């Protein structure tokens, strides 16, 4: 049998159920690998010496916290259940969580100094749901501060390095999740997607990730960035693995989240093996504009040919408001964020500045010192667009264009069953490269933002390696609640290709 970290999540679950390997061995194996790739730099005191858990040169920056005792305790419970024949669907399979999900047994920082050492009194619903399926929590994963970023360079924990080239970014905001899976530090991870934060890092790191329909997964315990856009989703090696995880993560949370949909749990694996013959795949011409880098265009076009070979029909469609999705998103998300982040004021929890003469100074210094640059910038933008006299021109206008963008998709879906295109215009860029031009990060989100604004399910799967030998991701966008169809197409593609099996040298 090949190494545990080379197995798909499905295969690993099978090995555990059949007692071929114990949950403890499994967790120990992944903990060992994870720690070997980890250097912990405490968020709040960057001057404190970094804590090397492994060879610094191998540090990926993916993991930010462990609780070995707790992890192994869960693993032992899984072994007991397996022995007793009461094993659950994913019994003993390790998973790590983006540090934006609050957890009782691990600190939760959201990549911010503001939450250094924060201990949540409760677990996020998604974390509980996966644990209830028998999954073992390995630790927490790095991300852009409060999920704001497209490169995972805005974290108080430092950047996450791309497993394929550690001079490049892993993507963001779920960069730690993507890198950890690509490196085989955990068989699967959770992520969150507000404007592309699952799809883009998945694409940059060569793994598979899906953002379900807005409202599918509970947002309770997911530290809010932009409430009307945030969605949780799984990140793993294959579409089949994602389907298993998504089935566990979805199903409404009526008692805790008013935006979660009233839908029963669903088996998203049910359609995986359906043939895709005759399937109409819409190709938005706006996704193939001049901004698209040649190496990406090439891989995408080959992937589309592959889908045609599998019997799908490619139909040209239009999403005319694609370009507008950038200003619309960067008005709406910061507006909601500026309000969502007001609770971080140094009064009830988290960071508080050391010296202050009055309440106002307590607020100002705490927030000025606690938040990073990008977060402050978005709070400023959001505060501005909501302020007196500007609301109608910016926020309200953006909400209206948001509906137009949404309607464009409904128009398009009259002529196709799902939409395919690139996830990003380019492959992972060099760390620090775009810090000089902050707008470039925003523009790079152009292909992921439309589906986010419309709340549609969308995913990314590996479909090639560019000239720079960096992964390229194919994006699939489905209509509302069409996740199983998306996963079906992705699985059929992965049955016929091996891009999803390519792993970076660093993972060996």
């Amino acid at each position, binding site marked *: 049998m090949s190494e545990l970290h080379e197995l798909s999540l499905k295969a690993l679950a099978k090995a555990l159920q059949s007692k071929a390997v114990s949950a403890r061995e499994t967790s120990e194996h992944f903990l060992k690998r994870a720690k070997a790739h980890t250097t912990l730099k405490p968020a709040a005191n960057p001057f404190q010496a970094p804590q090397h858990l492994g060879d610094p040169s191998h540090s990926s920056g993916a993991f930010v916290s462990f609780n070995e005792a707790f992890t192994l305790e869960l693993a032992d419970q899984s072994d007991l259940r397996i022995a007793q024949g009461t094993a659950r669907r994913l019994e003993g399979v390790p998973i790590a969580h983006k540090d934006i999900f609050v957890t009782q047994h691990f600190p939760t920082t959201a990549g911010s100094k503001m939450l250094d050492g924060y201990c949540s009194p409760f677990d996020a619903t998604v974390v509980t749901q996966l644990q209830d399926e028998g999954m073992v929590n390995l630790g927490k994963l790095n991300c852009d501060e409060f999920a704001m970023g497209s490169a995972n360079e805005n974290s108080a924990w430092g950047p996450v390095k791309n497993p394929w080239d550690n001079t490049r970014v892993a993507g963001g905001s779920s960069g730690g999740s993507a890198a950890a899976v690509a490196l085989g530090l955990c068989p699967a991870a959770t992520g969150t997607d507000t404007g592309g934060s699952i799809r883009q890092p998945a694409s940059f790191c060569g793994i598979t990730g899906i953002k379900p329909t807005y409202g599918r997964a509970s947002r309770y315990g997911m530290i809010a960035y932009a409430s009307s856009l945030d969605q949780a989703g799984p990140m793993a090696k294959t579409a089949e693995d994602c389907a298993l995880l998504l089935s566990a993560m979805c199903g409404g949370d009526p008692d805790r989240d008013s935006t979660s949909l009233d839908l029963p749990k669903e088996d998203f694996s049910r359609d995986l093996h359906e043939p895709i013959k005759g399937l109409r795949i819409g190709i938005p011409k706006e996704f193939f504009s001049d901004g698209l880098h040649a190496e990406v265009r090439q891989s995408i076009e080959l992937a589309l040919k592959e889908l045609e070979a599998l019997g799908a029909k490619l139909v040209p469609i239009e999403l005319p408001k694609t370009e507008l999705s950038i200003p619309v998103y960067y008005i709406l998300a910061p507006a909601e964020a500026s309000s969502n982040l007001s609770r971080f004021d140094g009064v*009830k929890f988290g960071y508080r500045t050391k010296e202050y003469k009055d309440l106002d100074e307590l607020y100002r210094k705490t927030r000025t010192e606690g938040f990073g640059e990008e977060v402050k910038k978005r709070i400023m933008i959001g505060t501005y667009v909501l302020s007196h006299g500007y*609301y109608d021109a910016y926020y309200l206008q953006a909400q209206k264009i948001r509906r137009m963008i949404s309607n464009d998709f409904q128009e398009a879906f009259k002529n196709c069953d799902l939409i395919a295109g690139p996830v990003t215009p380019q492959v992972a860029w060099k760390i620090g490269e775009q810090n000089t031009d902050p707008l470039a990060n925003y523009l790079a989100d152009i292909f992921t933002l439309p589906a986010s604004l419309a709340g549609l399910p969308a995913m990314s799967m590996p479909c090639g390696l560019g000239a720079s030998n960096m992964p390229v991701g194919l994006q699939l966008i489905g209509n509302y609640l069409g996740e199983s169809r998306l996963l079906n197409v992705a699985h059929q593609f992965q049955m016929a290709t091996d891009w999803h099996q390519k792993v970076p040298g660093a993972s060996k």
Partner: protein
Amino acid sequence: MSANLIHGYEVVIGFETHTQLTTRSKIFSRAATAFGAEPNTQACAVDLALPGTLPVMNRQAVERAIQFGLAVGGHVSPLSIFARKNYFYPDLPKGYQISQFEIPVVQGGEVEFFLGQEKKTVRLVRAHLEEDAGKSLHEDFVDQSGIDLNRAGTPLLEIVTEPDMRSSAEAVAYAKELHKIVTWIGICDGNMQEGSFRCDANVSIRRPGEALGTRREIKNLNSFKFMQQAIDFEILWQIEQLEEGHKIIQSTVLFNPDTGETKAMRTKEDSADYRYFPDPDLPPLVVASAWVDDVRAHMAELPRAMAARFVKDYGIPEYDAITLTQTQAMAHYFESVAKASSQPKMASNWIMGELSRKLNAAHLGFEACPLSALTLAAMLSRIADATLSNNAAKVVLEAVWDLSPDGLEPLAWIDRVIDQKGLKQINDTKALEVIIDGVLSANADQVEQIKAGKDKAFNALIGQVMKASQGKANPKDVNDLLRAKIAAL
């Protein structure tokens, strides 16, 4: 509008009232709303705005709002929106308050009440749902405040009026009527000491016919007494300012019960840019008409409707009807007495008069009235059939007030008391003539005066006759007979 000007100024008052709704759990969380718990023991993760928490709306709070809307004849909006009001304050855990801004759940409506004998109507602009804030405690800390978030998230209905009131008396009368309505329908416990019913008064003055003057808002008036004092002080202060040629600056003021003065609060520099926007955590609140109908069907008869019915069914004056519907207990007491005695007006007089006086003296409400409605009804029927004079009836009332009828039927009991006390009215003319003749012969000189036209003397004689009859004589009979006899002399 009424023309009671002060130094030539017309007073204009509008109200904003925060009523805490009677729900077990908070508006957006499952923590208890009970008053007086240890600090922060009733503030759950959602109330503390811990990272990752989200609001989930309490159905009962919405139902309370619907009940109020129906009670004041307002429009219950089929769709309303929760918005975020953004500002930083330690007692506001999220850094924003969830409230309703553009589309409130209740729109319009009015509150009617009597100011003395004059009927007043105050129009409501809106009533909207929102969450209460926590409390800052300043005692027992040096240079610091302690924040208790138990109250944070308690459901509030904020009720906003048009600037329809023209005097502090009218404002207080409105507040009392509103208090009556919300407690009558049971959506608020009305406890003003505990802050369940908090009023803000917007006060401005103007010369008659002029446009509205600049208003100052007096915050947190939590007693009717202070309300009157605060508004009166504020009115005189504003008049003084204008008379001295100053301008009124729009501001928020607090009333200090110790000094009896209102004083402007320090305004924060970046004052009020609340950046309202629809709360993305809460989809629109939809209230189906079926729900409104159902609430209407289960609602207790409202004071206004009950008063109207009293006027129609019992033929009592509207003023009586309004007074009798101050509380459910009083209204029900009246109705049972009126039914049992079939003497509605007499019942109304006795309940608003003698009984209210005695109960007030004993600090009792009608729900605790020691005298049963049926006993009172029996007594009234004895007045009606002329067995008792009004004065004698008062004696009977005293006698039976807090005694038990020891097994007797009310009427039998009343009759026994009348006999025991010998209070039966003399309706037998013969006996009366004997008394009158006696009095006349004993007061020949006064008879002369009367004949000379001095009617004062006549009243004196009536008094004598009544005295001689130990109050049992029927005053009307005495009057008639006496006149006849004197005329015959």
